[in-house]
C-alpha cells in the first residue's frame, strides 16, 4: 500500500460543477509528486481536499494507512505552502516559522534551534528578526517554505508556490525547493500549471484535465510518451497533420498504420529540414515552403507550409547558415519513430 492513497475522489460544487470526477492517485514516501493541468482542472481542489480545507463529495483519502477524511484539518499534520505566501504580516520572520511549533508544545530551546536551522535552509538566517511586510516575494515564499517544513509534517503541499514570482527567481527557487525536499525527504504534492516547472522538479507528474486524470508518470514518460492528445499538447508543443493523400503517402513511406479516424501528430523538435531532394532513406519527406522563421537563440522555429498542413520544425543551435527566408523551398524530414497517433477519443494508439 502506498503512503498516500486517494481513491475515487469526487467533488461537486453546487448543482452543476464537478471539480473532481473519480480521481485515484497514490504517492510514495519521499516522492515529489506534481499535479499539472490548466486552471479549473481540479488540481487545487484535490490539494485542498488533502489539506482538509474542503471536503470531498465522495471518495477516500488515506495517509500512511489511516483515513484522513475524518481528521479535522488542524490535526492532519500536513504542511502547506500557498500561492500568495500567506505569511503573517504582524509576526517577525522567526515567529512566523515558530508559529507551528507552539501548538506542538515544543520546548523553547528546541524551537530556537529548529527555526534557526529551517531559516538557514532557506537562506534567510540573517533576517530572523525582521517583519515580512517589506520583503520580496521570493523571500516571503522562503518563509512560507520554512514555516511548512519546520513542523516535520507527514506531507508537504504546495499550491502554485512560484506563480507570483518573476521568471528568473522562479527557476532559482524551484531548484532550491527540489534540493530541500530531497534533503528532508518529505512526500510532497506540488500543484502547478507550468509544464516546464513540473518536468524540472518532479519524481512523477499527474496531468489532470476537467476533473479527471489524463496520465501519471515520470517526466520522461509524460513528455516522451504521452498517452493522450491532451497530455501531448499541454506538455510541450505538437504539430497535428491534416488528413489527406499527403499524410497517407508519408505514413505509407514509413510503414505506419492506424485505424481510420486516427489523428497523427509530431513534436517539432523531432523534425529536421533539408534542401529539397536531398533526404536520407530512413525518413519520410514532406516538401514545403517556409512561411515564417523565428530565431530564439538556443533554438529556431521554422513554420513550413506542406501538403499535410502547417508544420513547425524546431532546430537546435541554429547558426547563421540555418536561417531560412520566407518562400524558400525546403523538405521536412520525419523520422519513423516520431509520429504519434491518437484515436477519436484522444487516447494514444500504439504508444
Amino acid at each position: 500500500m502506498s503512503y498516500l492513497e486517494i481513491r475515487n475522489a469526487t467533488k461537486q460544487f453546487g448543482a452543476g460543477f464537478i471539480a473532481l470526477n473519480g480521481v485515484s492517485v497514490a504517492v510514495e514516501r519521499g516522492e515529489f509528486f506534481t499535479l499539472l493541468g490548466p486552471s479549473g482542472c481540479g488540481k487545487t481542489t484535490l490539494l485542498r481536499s488533502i489539506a482538509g480545507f474542503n471536503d470531498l463529495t465522495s471518495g477516500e483519502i488515506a495517509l500512511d494507512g489511516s483515513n484522513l477524511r475524518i481528521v479535522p484539518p488542524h490535526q492532519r499534520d500536513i504542511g502547506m505552502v500557498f500561492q500568495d505566501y500567506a505569511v503573517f504580516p504582524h509576526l517577525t520572520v522567526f515567529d512566523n516559522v515558530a508559529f507551528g511549533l507552539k501548538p506542538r508544545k515544543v520546548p523553547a530551546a528546541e524551537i530556537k534551534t529548529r527555526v534557526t536551522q529551517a531559516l538557514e535552509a532557506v537562506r534567510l538566517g540573517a533576517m530572523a528578526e525582521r517583519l515580512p511586510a517589506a520583503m520580496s516575494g521570493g523571500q516571503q515564499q522562503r518563509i512560507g517554505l520554512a514555516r511548512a517544513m519546520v513542523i516535520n509534517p507527514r506531507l508537504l503541499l504546495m499550491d502554485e508556490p512560484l506563480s507570483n514570482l518573476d521568471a528568473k527567481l522562479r527557476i532559482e527557487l524551484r531548484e532550491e525547493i527540489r534540493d530541500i525536499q530531497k534533503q528532508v525527504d518529505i512526500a510532497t504534492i506540488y500543484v502547478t500549471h507550468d509544464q516546464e516547472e513540473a518536468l524540472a522538479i518532479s519524481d512523477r507528474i499527474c496531468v489532470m484535465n476537467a476533473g479527471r486524470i489524463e496520465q501519471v508518470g515520470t517526466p520522461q514518460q509524460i513528455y516522451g510518451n504521452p498517452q493522450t492528445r491532451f497530455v501531448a499538447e499541454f506538455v510541450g508543443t505538437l504539430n497535428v497533420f491534416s488528413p489527406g493523400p499527403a499524410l497517407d503517402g508519408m505514413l505509407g513511406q514509413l510503414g505506419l498504420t492506424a485505424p481510420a479516424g486516427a489523428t497523427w501528430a509530431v513534436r517539432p523538435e523531432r523534425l529536421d529540414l533539408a534542401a529539397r531532394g536531398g533526404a536520407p532513406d530512413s525518413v519520410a519527406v514532406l516538401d514545403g515552403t517556409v512561411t515564417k522563421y523565428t530565431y530564439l537563440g538556443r533554438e529556431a522555429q521554422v513554420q513550413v507550409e506542406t501538403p499535410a498542413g502547417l508544420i513547425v520544425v524546431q532546430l537546435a543551435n541554429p547558426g547563421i547558415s540555418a536561417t531560412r527566408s520566407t518562400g524558400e523551398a525546403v523538405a521536412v524530414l520525419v523520422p519513423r519513430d516520431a509520429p504519434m497517433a491518437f484515436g477519436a477519443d484522444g487516447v494514444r494508439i500504439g504508444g
Partner: protein
Amino acid sequence: MPRFNFWAVVMILTWVLLFVLLFIPVGSVLVSSLFDQEGQLTGANYLQFLSEPRFHRAFLNTLVVGFGGLFGALLLGSIMAFCVSRFVIRGGKFVSLLAILALVSPPFIGAYSWIELFGAGGVVRGFLRDWGINMPPIYGVGGILIVFSLKFYPYVYLMVSGALGNVNRSLEEAAEGLGLTPWQRTMQISFPMVFPALTAGGLLALIHAIADFGTPRLLGRGYNVLATEAFTLYAAEVGSNMSMATTISVILILLSMVFVMLQRYMSRRNVYHGNMINKPIRIQLRGWRNVLAHAAVYLIGLCGAMPVIISVIYSFRKTNGPVFQDGFALQSYERILFNLGDVVRNSLTFSVAAVALIVVVGTVVGVLVARRTTFNTSLLDGAFMVPYVMPGIVIGIAFIAAFNTGPIVLTGTAAIIILSIFIRRLPYTVRTTASSLRQISPSMEEAAVSLGYSPFQAFLRITVPLIVPGIIAGGMLSFVTAINELSSSLVLYVGSTMTMPVRIYLLILDGDFGVAAALSTVLLLLSGCAVYLAFRFMGRNEQALL
C-alpha cells in the same frame, strides 16, 4: 455544527437590533406622520405641509442652504485639494491639520465664533466700523452659507485630494503625448477621474448641510429650515405638534435619500482602478503663482479652523458673569470644574458606552458580513445604509416616537442617547470591519490551521491581531462623532442626561460665551486626543474621518 449556530444567532440578533433600533423608530415616524393630534388616520399633515407658506419656505431654504453649502464646499475643497496634491505647498501637513480641526469641531461652534467676529457686536465688525467701513452683520442665509462652506469643505478636500493622488501620471502624460493642452488635460482626463470623489465629498457636504440644526438656529435669525422646523414643532412649550414634526422628519429622510440615489446615479459608471506604477508628482510653482497657491490654501485652512482658534482664545478670557473683560483668566474653566462636572461626565460615559457597543457589535456583524456570505448579507448591507440618510434631529424624534410609550419606554434615560449614537455610527464600523477583513487573504487563516491551530484559534491569533488596529482607530473616530453629537441629544436629553454639546448650545443661547468657549475647548481636546490615537493605530489617514 456549533459554528453555524453561533453565526445564525448573531444573524438573528442583528436583525432584532435593526428592527428595534431602526425599523420601529422609522416606522413610528411614518405612522405618527399619518395621524393627527386626535389620533385619527389622515393625510392632513402632508396636505398642511404642502399648503402652508411657512413650510414651503423651510423646504426651499433647506434646498438653498443644502446646495449653497454643497457648492461652497466643492469650490473651497477642490481648490485646496488641487493645490495641495499638485503643487509643493510649504507646511502641507499643517494645512491638513487645519482641515481636520474644522471637521472635528461641532458645527454650532462655527456659527458662534463667526457671530463673535462678524455678528451685531462682532470684534471684526467693530474694528472695521472704527475705520469707517460699515459691513452688515453675518446673520441670515449668507452667514449660514459661509459657515457651511468653511465647515464642510474638508469632506470635499479629503475625498478629492485622495483621488487626485491616485490618478496615474502616465494617463496625463499619454494625453500630453496626444497633443492636449494642460487645460484640456485637466478637464478631459483628471476631472473625470476625480468625479466620483467630487460627488461623494459633495454628497457628504450636502447631507450634513441639510441635517445641520445648530447653525441655522444660531445664525439664521428667522431663516427657517426643515431641521429647525422639526425641532421647533417638537420642542414648543405650548402646542407641541409631534405629528407635524414627524411629517417633516419623513420629508427630510426622503430628501436625503433622493440625494444619495442621485449621487450613486451620477458616479455609477465612473469607478476607475488605476495601477499606481507612475505616481503623480507635485510641481514647485514660482513667483506670483506660488504666492497665490499658498495664499488660497492658507486662507481656506485658517478660515475653516477659525472657530476653533476663536473658542480656544475666548475660553481663556477674563469674564464677569457672561460679560467678557480685558485680560486673561481661567474663570471659565473654574466654572466648568465646579458647576458642569456632571455634563462632562455624562458626555464621557455616554460616548464611551456607545463606542464600546459600536466596536463590539460592529466587529461581530462586520465579520458576519465579510465571512458568512451565504447569509443574506447584501440585504443587511442595505439596511445599514438607512441611518446614513437620517439627520440627527430625525433620529431623535424617531426614538421619541418609538420609545415614549409602548412595550419599551426609554425616554429620559441615558440609554436612549447612547442607543441613538450607537445606531447612527454602527454602519460605519460594520463597513470598515468588513472591508478590512476582505483584504486579509483567507489563506492566512488556512496556513495557521495547517500548522495545527483550530479554526477559531486561527481566527483569534491571525485575523484578530490584523484587524484590531483598524477597529481601535474606528472606535476612536466613532468617539469623535459621539461626543460631538448635538441634534439627536437635544431632542432626547432631560436635565440629568445633558451632554456637553447640548450645554454649549444652551450657553450660547443664554449669551454665556466664556463658558461655552471653555467647554468647546474641552470637547475639542477630547476629540483631538481621539483623532491622534486613531492616527497612531492606523497611520495618518485623514480620509477615515469622513
